[in-house]
């Protein structure tokens, strides 16, 4: 099987903090990465002081921010699924899973990265994770790609233990920061935290994944 990574998240910027370094390392090695982003993040709350955007103009900003973020980490295949922020859990899960499955069958990725169902806090994250798990469960075991999940709920370690993979991304940290900075309308606080808080900086240099067991 050729290496090809498929990343599935609901919001532009979901890839930035937890996964961008891993993606940059992969694309550095020439591994293609496809990113399915389900929404435009149109319900984001950061409007700035003084406000630089509105509820109605934010989606356009976030769209171009995501384009830039993809460029920063070498993603050349971005697929926007056109759902609306905060509504993914109310969509028909089977239809969403079928759309994801279609891409999986087209690309035959060796690994898929998404959130860990039950441990990813935001309802859109949970719905995305569940749809990915459901999609993969429809595949025969021997053709199922590995599923690496991001989890950050407070009770993560109690529930699913320590991460199976802790990936050091120091070597591509600048590119990870470029990705985070590309989403500057929403990540101002995060950029400051990483630059000013040494503990946060250390945390950001490692990316943590839990391998999903079907």
């Amino acid at each position: 099987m050729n290496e090809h990574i498929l990343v599935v998240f609901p919001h532009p910027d979901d890839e930035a903090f937890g996964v961008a370094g891993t993606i940059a390392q992969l694309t550095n090695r020439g591994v293609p990465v496809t990113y399915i982003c389900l929404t435009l993040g149109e319900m984001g709350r950061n409007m700035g002081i003084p406000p630089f955007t509105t509820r109605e103009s934010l989606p356009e900003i976030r769209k171009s921010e995501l384009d830039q973020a993809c460029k920063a980490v070498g993603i050349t295949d971005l697929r926007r699924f056109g759902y609306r922020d905060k509504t993914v859990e109310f969509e028909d899960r089977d239809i969403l899973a079928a759309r994801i499955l279609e891409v999986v069958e087209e690309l035959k990725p060796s690994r898929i990265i998404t959130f860990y169902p039950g441990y990813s806090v935001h309802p859109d994250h949970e719905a995305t994770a569940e749809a990915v798990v459901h999609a993969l469960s429809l595949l025969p075991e021997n053709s199922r790609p590995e599923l690496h999940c991001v989890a950050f709920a407070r009770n993560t370690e109690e529930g699913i233990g320590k991460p199976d993979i802790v990936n050091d991304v120091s070597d591509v940290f600048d590119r990870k920061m470029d990705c985070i900075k590309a989403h500057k309308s929403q990540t101002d606080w995060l950029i400051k935290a990483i630059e000013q808080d040494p503990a946060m900086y250390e945390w950001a240099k490692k990316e943590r994944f839990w391998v999903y067991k079907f």
Partner: protein
Amino acid sequence: MQPILIEHVQPVIEQFFGEDVYLHLETTNGAYANHNNEKVLTVNAYIRNGKVNFDSGKITGPGPYRVGLKIELGWIYAEGLTHWELDSSGRLLLAGHDAEGKLAVALQISRNPFE
């Protein structure tokens, strides 16, 4: 967006009196409110493209501001509004931003459906 001035916003509200218009009304403390502080309830609500018709309504308060619009059988209400804009599509956008610049409430009126 600009800081609200009642004398600027009230006449714009009145331009929409007596017409079928589309409403976006939202309040939010963020999807991570409870994740960030266990004592806080995550509370978010919105209606997008509700079709409404109001023939009276006011913006009031010392700032932040309140808006009440009277519809046939009830009310549209928002509190905590700080900024406004009449955008290039002729939509009235009112929003309340908290001390960190995050949107906490929005009340928007448009003659055409919001995207």
